[in-house]
């Protein structure tokens, strides 16, 4: 009887190698990837023009195609909120709840194998590779808290870890697994060469925006200025684009930095009051929050500062309401001395 496993595929090299190691033992493997909304994958590169020389592909799908396996992408945006807002094991150096996150994903994979009649779960984890979720003392926590127990196989580090059920039952051979540990990449690169993998993603800084300080700062700022910490997908997408400027506690401005961002932000003009200079070329600016009519002159002066009219005596700015109505203001661009650095989120 051919056994079946689901492999958590991030799109990076480790999960690709782990999957291949199990496939080579005759197991039927399919891939799974959980979309939390914070994943760095292709969509961010699709927004910014400067990133358009980077591959736009979804690396998890690309890996699945290289391995010749099915890939299931699962929307966990709603469920993930509890992981991010209430992490039992706390955050890493930024707003990254890595240990809770890994436990959550393995738990979701465990639920999936129960629903679909699969036998066990594979991850590309390596003992000692990550400061929170891939330590010798935290790897058993993931097994325990996910409910997966010894149905969780980590092929790249299996020889450093207790035997799992698939090994004991003879579904897979321990000898065909590996004993990698630590942060070095040499064993993985050598194994990739052995398998003939020449093209694979080398994500810098992980695959999640929550490990990024600038992103985390914007997320915390958003929470601090709202009555609760709930969020929607649009909220967390908007944190990935533009300059964020908070001149007053009750609103912030999102200023497009380039054409790609402006195009993306155009799609939000029916959700946010927005403005742009009409007498000069300048960026689209969205107003997030409750700017009052008294704030509009300041908002227009900031908008004017980011366009080609920044040295002009006067810039005409059009302010568009969500209902489609608009007004224009003639303003002097704000002087750099009146624009404190602390306004940047």
């Amino acid at each position, binding site marked *: 009887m051919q056994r079946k496993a689901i492999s958590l595929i991030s799109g990076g090299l480790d999960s690709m190698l782990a999957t291949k190691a199990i496939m080579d033992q005759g197991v039927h493997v399919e891939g799974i990837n959980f979309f939390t909304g914070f994943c760095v994958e*292709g*969509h961010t590169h699709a927004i910014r023009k400067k990133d358009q020389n980077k591959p736009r*592909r979804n690396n998890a*799908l690309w890996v699945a195609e290289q391995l010749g396996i*099915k890939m*299931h*992408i699962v*929307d966990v945006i709603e469920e993930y909120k509890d992981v991010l807002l209430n992490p039992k094991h706390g955050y890493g150096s930024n707003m990254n709840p890595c240990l809770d996150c890994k436990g959550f994903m393995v738990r979701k994979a465990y639920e999936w194998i129960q629903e679909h009649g699969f036998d066990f779960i594979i991850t590309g984890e390596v003992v000692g590779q990550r400061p929170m979720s891939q330590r010798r003392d935290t790897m058993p926590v993931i097994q325990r808290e996910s409910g997966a127990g010894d149905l969780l196989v980590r092929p790249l580090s299996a020889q450093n870890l207790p035997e799992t059920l698939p090994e004991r039952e003879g579904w897979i051979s321990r000898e065909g697994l590996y004993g990698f540990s630590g942060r070095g990449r040499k064993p993985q690169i050598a194994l990739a060469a052995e398998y003939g993998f020449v093209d694979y993603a080398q994500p810098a800084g992980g695959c999640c925006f929550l490990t990024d300080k600038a992103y985390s700062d914007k997320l915390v700022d958003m929470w601090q200025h709202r009555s609760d910490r709930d969020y929607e997908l649009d909220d967390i997408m908007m944190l990935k684009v533009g300059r964020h400027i908070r001149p007053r506690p009750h609103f912030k401005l999102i200023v497009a930095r380039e054409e790609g961002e402006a195009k993306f932000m155009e799609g939000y003009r029916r959700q946010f009051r927005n403005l742009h200079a009409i007498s000069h070329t300048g960026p689209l600016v969205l107003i997030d929050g409750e700017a009052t009519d008294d704030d509009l002159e300041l908002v227009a002066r900031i908008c004017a500062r980011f366009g080609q009219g920044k040295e002009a005596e006067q810039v005409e700015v059009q302010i568009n309401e969500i209902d489609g109505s608009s007004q224009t203001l003639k303003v002097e661009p704000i002087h750099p001395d009146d624009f404190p650095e602390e306004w940047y989120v």
Partner: protein
Amino acid sequence: MSEHELDARRMLCPMPVIKVQDAIKDLHSGDILNVVCSDPGAIYDVPAWSRVHGHQVLLAEVRDEEVHIQIKVEAS
């Protein structure tokens, strides 16, 4: 055999892929799904997802800055 439409405009990948995946769950072998996306990355991701699941990509092209993909559902 029937033909279906999916509007995945204003979604960034992988959401168009997830929507295609969800739509195809309810379709039958031989059905056609026409998808329109505004994320340029969809022209890579939606066909890749379709191929790994054994569905046929009949068309994948950019028209007027939108990605148009036509998928023929195969039994999987």
